[in-house]
């Protein structure tokens, strides 16, 4: 099912003409309204009227997450605050959150994009969608909510957690579609199993899953255990939230990027050079229609590649493959952004000195696990077991408090963590994504 036939199947030429018009408008708009962009464009020696073709995109400077932080909270807003009807933010795990705003029109655009997403997954009017993405500052819950309402589905705004109740409601309300993170879908399966509920016998037919990287193996597992189609979606709060790109149930092979609203590039994360279609690199978005906080060439740090081949569903938008990793050191653990520096600061605070440490991320039963090995030294050592165990527990508690994820802290002997000649290797990611 295609929600917006006109745009989603726009011939390439017409799409590019639309993109150019919108890009020109965007650059003019931010140049006039956002001092940050005016300064950056001036420094790059680009005037808005010099944008003559889509190829001129290359001349525009990148925007990074740091730029959003530096302009916290509202410095990048391009409209007066009274036009901002919604404010969302990232979790702010490395300090200040990144704040994004939406005008009424942005909210409508977002709902349109999520409506496309749900329709592509086969969710429509008459469906009962159990929306188990978190509601709140996180964009997942409300983003999915408005889109599903727009298509006329009945939305159950249950948010995340409370798994037994989720299963009960699924049974009692006759849920036909579910949206949540893929790992939560597997958690729900386990809870259902404990409750003696066979998900395959419920009317749920499709799941719309995102907000964390997952593999095709995980897709197969979810599909088999739930007896549903599992659809992948992509988005990030800076760009708009969920709804940047979505899979279609027909192909389940790469996510269609809503190119009428986002201009996409793949770049070499080292040099910043644009890469041709099909090559692996960092995906970069320019928001073509966003009013409240438009972004020019936003560096996502997500590594993927674009698929230009036409899709069997009939959409003309290019597709992006599943995200393969990150170009910086940020880890996504159970959907939460985690930086090694956060763990470091906790260890530093614990005893006033920084021990050697190693972060090990793995995946057990489809749930990410976080283990932190900490080398014991004379400051950390005690002849009493309970003091050492208290130390482990207090570090675990601090990690949980700071990043919201349970970690296993394990004290190890000195010099057992490998030393490297250059930059210390602090993270081992054993997950196969």
């Amino acid at each position, binding site marked *: 099912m295609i929600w917006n036939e006109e745009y989603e199947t726009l011939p390439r030429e017409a799409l590019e003409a639309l993109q150019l018009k919108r890009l020109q408008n965007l650059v003019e708009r931010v140049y006039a309204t956002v001092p940050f962009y005016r300064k950056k464009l001036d420094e790059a020696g680009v005037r808005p009227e010099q944008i003559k073709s889509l190829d001129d995109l290359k001349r525009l400077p990148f925007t990074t997450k740091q730029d959003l932080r530096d302009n916290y909270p509202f410095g990048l807003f391009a409209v007066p605050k009274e036009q901002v009807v919604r404010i969302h933010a990232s979790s702010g795990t490395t300090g200040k959150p990144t704040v994004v705003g939406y005008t009424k029109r942005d909210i409508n655009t977002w709902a349109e994009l999520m409506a496309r997403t749900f329709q592509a997954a086969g969710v429509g009017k008459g469906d009962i969608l159990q929306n188990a993405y978190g509601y709140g500052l996180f964009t997942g819950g409300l983003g999915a909510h408005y889109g599903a309402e727009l298509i006329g589905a009945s939305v159950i705004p249950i948010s995340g957690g409370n798994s037994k109740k989720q299963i009960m409601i699924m049974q009692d309300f006759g849920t036909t579609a579910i949206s949540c993170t893929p790992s939560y879908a597997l958690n729900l399966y386990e809870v259902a199993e404990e409750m003696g509920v066979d998900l395959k016998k419920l009317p749920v037919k499709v799941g719309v899953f995102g907000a964390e990287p997952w593999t095709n193996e995980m897709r197969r597992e979810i599909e088999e255990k739930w007896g549903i189609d599992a659809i992948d979606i992509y988005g990030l709060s800076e760009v708009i939230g969920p709804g940047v790109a979505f899979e279609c149930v027909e192909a389940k092979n790469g996510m269609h990027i809503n190119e009428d609203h986002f201009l996409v590039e793949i770049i070499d994360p080292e040099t910043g050079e644009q890469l041709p279609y099909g090559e692996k690199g960092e995906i970069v978005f320019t928001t073509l229609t966003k009013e409240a906080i438009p972004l020019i060439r936003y560096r996502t740090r997500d590594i993927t590649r674009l698929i230009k081949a036409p899709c069997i569903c009939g959409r003309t938008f290019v597709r992006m493959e599943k995200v393969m990793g990150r170009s910086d050191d940020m880890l996504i653990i159970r959907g939460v952004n985690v930086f090694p520096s956060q763990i470091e600061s906790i260890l530093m605070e614990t005893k006033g000195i920084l021990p050697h440490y190693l972060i090990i991320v793995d995946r057990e039963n489809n749930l990410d696990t976080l283990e932190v090995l900490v080398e014991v030294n004379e400051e950390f050592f005690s002849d009493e*077991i309970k003091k*050492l165990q208290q130390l482990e527990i207090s570090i675990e508690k601090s990690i949980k408090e700071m990043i919201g994820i349970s970690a296993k802290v394990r004290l*190890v*002997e000195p010099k057992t963590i490998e030393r490297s000649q250059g930059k210390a290797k602090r993270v081992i990611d054993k997950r196969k994504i």
Partner: protein
Amino acid sequence: MKITQISIFIENQSGRLWEVCDLLGKNNINIRALSLADTSDFGILRLIVNDPEKAYQKLRENEFTVGKTEVIAVEVPDSPGGLAKVLKILKDNNINVEYMYAFVERSGDCAIMIFRFDETDKAIEALNNNGIKTIKGQEIYGL
């Protein structure tokens, strides 16, 4: 009356305990008493040796995490109720035992126990006032 105990952090890996003992043996250090406390991840080996200073240095040189702790060695009557008698004195004086373990040798008619207290001096005083003998370091190291 306080004696020096060497504590070593040991990860739960096969052969690790041997490495400690082997190192001590090669350096002619004799173990007088020991206890091994463990968790699922790591253990702490506590040792009374004939030359604690040397043991401490050698272990450090070999990059073990080592600590020195003051413990006391107590003569416990080697008869039924002997240990209970000692513990009662501690209980009556509100002294908490952090941990304890037995010494391998006997001294006269007594067994020897190693005690670790939070308030070591208070413990020594209470024991001595009640006729329980604590043994000097030099005596223990040379036994």
